[in-house]
């Protein structure tokens, strides 16, 4: 269910159409060209698509669904982890965690299966990076690493002099998925059981290495994607040490197109805004984190939230 939180935004109501989507998505067909286990409960899915009128930007998502069945009916929002355009078509890659009926069936897909794809959608991380950005630190938890892979590749185009560091955490080594994602330079790994890299949470790794990470001063920007408690903990650090934080929320959606009003979250004025269009990437300063942690809606959203 939708990640529920409280955002500060100028939009009065989510159904105010004076706020248009940043990019117009298109609908197409994607053929499964690669599917492989990428870690415990996580798989890598790669689709071949016809040429698209526009390339996705890191942080944007695709709605992916089945053409051959009405059960499951709805498309699933998947963060785009890789994108390559050729002369006749393109390839898009996703890191998918098995969460329910739709993702379970996706995991059982065979090569050659044709899926419905609507993309690119939502706000991206790139809009938060200026040309003079010297350092970008990405903090990822679990499948939250997906948009950071694309970010690592695209960041050089936006800010050639920026260096990109990725802090990537999972509960165990088995849940890390770097083998399929071609992650190498600037990668710092944390596992909660210490089976690889730093022993502890990725936020603890960040805190331990903070002085080193933020050496470039306040111009370092931190981007994060992962479970809500991780984002909450990171925001605490951002407030304490005054660095810029941009977060991407995970959350189920009905249509992803701004039509169903199913993925709404509350803003600072107590109004509902659409996560699919205002998010999933947002400035942490726009989120009312304290209200967020008191919300009953968190329980509904499936989070057993215990602030550290």
């Amino acid at each position, binding site marked *: *269910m*939708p990640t*529920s939180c409280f955002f500060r935004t100028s939009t*009065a*109501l*989510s*159904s*105010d*159409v*004076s706020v*248009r*989507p940043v990019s*117009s*998505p*298109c*609908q197409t067909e994607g053929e499964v060209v690669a599917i492989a286990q990428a870690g415990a409960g996580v798989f890598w899915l790669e689709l071949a698509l016809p040429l698209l009128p526009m390339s996705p930007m890191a942080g944007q998502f695709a709605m992916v*669904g089945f053409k051959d069945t*009405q*059960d*499951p*009916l*709805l*498309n699933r929002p998947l963060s785009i982890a890789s994108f390559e355009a050729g002369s006749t078509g393109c390839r898009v890659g996703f890191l998918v965690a098995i969460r329910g*009926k*739709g993702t379970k069936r996706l995991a059982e897909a065979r090569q050659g299966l044709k899926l*419905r794809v*609507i993309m690119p959608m939502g706000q991206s991380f790139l809009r938060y990076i200026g040309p003079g950005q010297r350092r970008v630190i990405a903090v990822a938890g679990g499948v939250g690493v997906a948009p950071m892979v694309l970010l690592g590749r695209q960041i050089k185009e936006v800010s050639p002099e920026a260096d990109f560091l990725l802090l990537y955490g999972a509960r165990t080594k088995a849940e890390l998925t770097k083998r399929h994602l071609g992650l190498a330079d600037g990668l710092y790994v944390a596992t909660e059981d210490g089976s690889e890299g730093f022993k502890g949470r990725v936020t603890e790794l960040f805190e331990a290495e903070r002085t080193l990470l933020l050496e470039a001063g306040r111009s370092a920007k931190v981007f994060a994607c992962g479970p809500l408690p991780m984002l909450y903990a990171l925001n605490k650090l951002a407030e304490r040490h005054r660095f810029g934080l941009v977060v991407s929320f995970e959350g*189920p959606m*009905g*249509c992803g*197109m*701004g*039509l*169903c*009003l*199913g*993925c*709404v*979250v509350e803003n600072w004025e*107590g*109004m*509902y805004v659409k996560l699919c269009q205002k998010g999933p990437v947002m400035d942490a300063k726009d989120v009312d984190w304290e209200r967020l942690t008191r919300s009953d*809606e968190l*329980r*509904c*959203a*499936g989070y057993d939230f215990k602030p550290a």
Partner: protein
Amino acid sequence: MTSNRLEVPFLGKTIKNPIAAASGCYGYGLEQPELLPPEAFGVITLKGLSASPKRGNPPPRIAETPCGMLNSIGLENVGIEAFAKNTWPHLRGLGVPIIANFFGDDETEFQKAAQMLSDLEGLFAMELNLSCPNKPQWGSILASDPKVASRLVRSIKPLCRYPLIVKLSPNVASISEVAKACEDSGADALSLINTLLGMAIDVDAKSSKLGTRFGGLSGPSIYPIALRMVSEVSRSVRLPIVGMGGVSSPEDAIGMMLAGASLVGVGTLLLVNPFGVEEIKQGMLAYLDRHGLEKLTGLQGRL
């Protein structure tokens, strides 16, 4: 669409194709101008509007069910005033007939909404939503009691500058009786069905999967029920019908027309497969070819 083979008459107007965007699944018509252009539809029914803005229900608002989905959006909307100021000027010029769906928490609010919409220039029709999720008890009486429905339609109709379509709820003992009551009270057309009241439980959390206890079921799973109700109502009244409920293929749409619908509404389909509108129109043309028919007019039956 260059051909006029899909043209159908509805409320004194020639509609270029029988596909109607159902209320609540196509926003205010401007959300996805490229992915799902307004021009694809014969008519567009806007998301339900009320005299004052409505916040809607707390999330989670959507739960997937087998071949369908439950929603408890709660008629969130910006209110007619904001709509008239910010959205209507952009919608008007599109050349697609626009139907404004409206509701109220009581009779006075319904009247006020009807008046405010009548002040707009260039609407095609108004669709009265005969159920109210904000006041569920009143909503359920309104939807199911022919006398109450009749009284409301009688009090609204004189305020409407545009043809009045009444949208019927399937959560009633006899939809035909409510349909007849609306016809006798001056409705110009009927649309059916709205969503079926349903529930989904998260057994691990031991709670509703929605932020509210119940929600409205839509999608392919309700199509046979919708078809039966359209068929039933088409034999009970003379009013034109916008048939909807789970339509997701050309066959579904043609079936709706054979059951008695003049126009066919698509809702949940738009959320899942925006290409579906074009697929239905192409499938209808193929059907006409297969059956040696020149035009869609005349296909409408009363099966």
